[in-house]
């Protein structure tokens, strides 16, 4: 086993230099371009980015849900000491649902409409564990109880359409955790839910994370829900990792202009003027025609400060601005911090 430089030895999952490309009618889609991160059991990593930033594809590539007959996946994904990239399909299938599990965005469509909740739960258990049908059923009821579904003994025989959205997402969580996987990926799992239910589901994930000692990857476009939960944050843009840092640093000392833009777009009650959000100008880049140079340059309001035109010419390297804080930006460190301070001061309500 080769020991990667960027890999923490205690990490349960470590991804390094992950690249995912799909062919399409218009050309090669550069969905993910050289992303690295790692996550330890009991910790939560948030992957944040706009739609099309490659965050979901990253998750699906880890899970082996990207169709490898079509897409090319390269780089390294180490899960509990095993390399997943290039692993035969059948072996990878044996790990899915057992060591790593995933919950998806829309609980309405993610459960099969024709099967009872209990059958869908036990299916996940029966395929990976040697269990009798009745043991699997008791396990399913126990899991439903643990995710806070009332009367689990009856609910186990319900069909998905008989449950509310929040209940269905609880069922999805129960299904994902039924084999006690050490890695749980939640892909926009609260986006489709009411705000109050969102909070309940996030609380549930956090609670179960402690119980099961799970490493959690929380994929979201909403920086607002990340603050309380995540230990580390990875910000993705145009398929690239543009900033990675412990959560507190992302909120209090961000350095990448895109991260600043994201923070600036979050509506906050403590702001002076809640009616004025500052959206990032322009649109995310097409993954087929990624801009030369820095992917964020066309939308970056500070790129003129880099006078040698590097933003247009070269993709910036990921540099470690502080220990554990990585940034991909051509702006000099002092300049980045000056800009960030200015933006954060506005956010805090001071007249800038």
């Amino acid at each position, binding site marked *: 086993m080769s020991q990667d430089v960027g890999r923490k030895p205690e990490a349960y999952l470590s991804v390094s230099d992950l690249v995912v490309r799909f062919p399409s009618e218009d050309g090669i889609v550069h969905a993910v371009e050289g992303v690295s991160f790692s996550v330890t059991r009991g910790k939560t990593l948030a992957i944040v980015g706009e739609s099309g930033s490659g965050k979901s594809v990253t998750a699906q590539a880890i*899970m082996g*849900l990207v169709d490898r007959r079509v897409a090319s996946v390269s780089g390294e994904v180490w899960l509990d000491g095993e390399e997943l990239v290039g692993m035969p*399909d059948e072996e990878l*299938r*044996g*790990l*899915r*649902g*057992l060591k790593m*599990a*995933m919950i*998806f965005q*829309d609980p309405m*469509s*993610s*459960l*099969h*409409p*024709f099967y*009872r909740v209990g059958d869908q739960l036990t*299916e*996940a258990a029966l*395929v*990976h564990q040697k269990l009798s049908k009745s043991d699997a059923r008791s396990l399913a009821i126990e899991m439903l109880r643990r995710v806070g579904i009332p009367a689990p003994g009856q609910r186990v025989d319900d*069909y998905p*359409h*008989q449950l509310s959205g929040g209940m269905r997402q609880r069922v*999805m969580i129960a*299904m*994902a955790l039924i084999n006690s996987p050490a890695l749980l990926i939640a892909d926009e799992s609260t986006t489709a839910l009411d705000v109050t239910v969102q909070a309940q589901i996030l609380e549930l994930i956090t609670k179960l994370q402690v119980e099961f000692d799970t490493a959690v990857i929380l994929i979201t476009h909403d920086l607002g829900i990340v603050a309380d939960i995540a230990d580390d944050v990875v910000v993705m843009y145009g398929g690239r990792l543009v900033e990675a840092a412990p959560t507190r640093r992302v909120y209090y000392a961000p350095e990448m202009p895109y991260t600043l833009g994201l923070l600036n777009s979050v509506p906050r009650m403590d702001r002076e003027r809640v009616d004025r959000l500052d959206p990032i100008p322009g649109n995310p880049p097409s993954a087929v025609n990624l801009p030369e140079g820095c992917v964020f340059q066309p939308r970056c309001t500070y790129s003129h400060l880099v006078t040698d035109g590097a933003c247009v010419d070269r993709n910036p390297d990921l540099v470690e601005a502080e220990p554990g804080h990585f940034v991909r930006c051509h702006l000099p460190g002092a300049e980045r911090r000056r800009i960030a301070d200015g933006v954060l001061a506005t956010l805090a309500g001071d007249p800038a």
Partner: protein
Amino acid sequence: MAGYLVRRVLGMLVLLFLLTTTVFFLFNILPGDPARLTCGKACSPTIIEANRHRLGLDEPVLTQYGKFVAGIFVGRTFSPDSPEPIVCSAPCLGYSFKRGEQVLPLIMRSAPVTFYLAIGAFVIWLVVGISLGIYAALRRGRWQDRLIMTISLVGYSLPSFFIGLLLVFFVIVKWGLLPFPSYVSPFENPVQFTQTMILPWMVLAALNAAFYMRLTRNQVLETLGDDYVRTARAKGLPERTVIVHHALRAGLTPIVTAAGLDLAYLLGGAIITENIFSLPGLGALAVNSITDSDLPLIAGITLLTASLIIFANLIVDLLYAVIDPRVRLA
């Protein structure tokens, strides 16, 4: 669910009643004198009139209709005042003047042939059509998919009389692989029965299998992209389980609909195939009854075929509830 069933059965009865009425009046306004058909060339107006009276055709149309309907439920007697009355017990579908026989026994004699033909072909085309459809979906865009879709297109475009004649010419006449078809009951001579039926089964199956390949392929491709299929994969289920239990199951409804109606339609007689292979089934009987202008027999076969379709519709609707639990509570 029980209420739904009762409503459906009641609706079916109303439909059957309307159907019976339509068939009766349709055949009464058609040109042609049924009484004229009862005697051969050496016929005199007196005999025709006597026969007309004997069969009750001289009565007003509404009276005739009443007797026709009564016949279906309680049976009837033709020419009750003659020395040899014809007793037609319920369900009486009428009396074939041409053949001098009641309609129902005539139909019942031909029905088993058509039944074996239809069921055999049905099983073959479902197995072949659905499995090749799934396979094509899994190999989408590759040569296996294109080959299967081309075969399907060819199979779908060739008329059954062409495939039938081709098979007869090569398999029976040229290569002598099978004897000339001659129908016997499977209980009498199972070997000869199979030898006779195998080509007709293939002809009927070929046409339908082509359609089911396409249908299954498209259904599976559609559901393979659905979220719950991704969930099934994320659980680590084997690919076969994902395809069959998750993707195919979800796309089954249109396949079941088509299968139910196609089978019912076929049970009413496969006219062309039965004629090519000289099978004495309902299709052959229907053709003969039409060339003979045997109105009661045509009416009887029409009623039977239509009833089968109505009944199949009910079965299909009930199967929906088995397939899709959301239908059960609606």
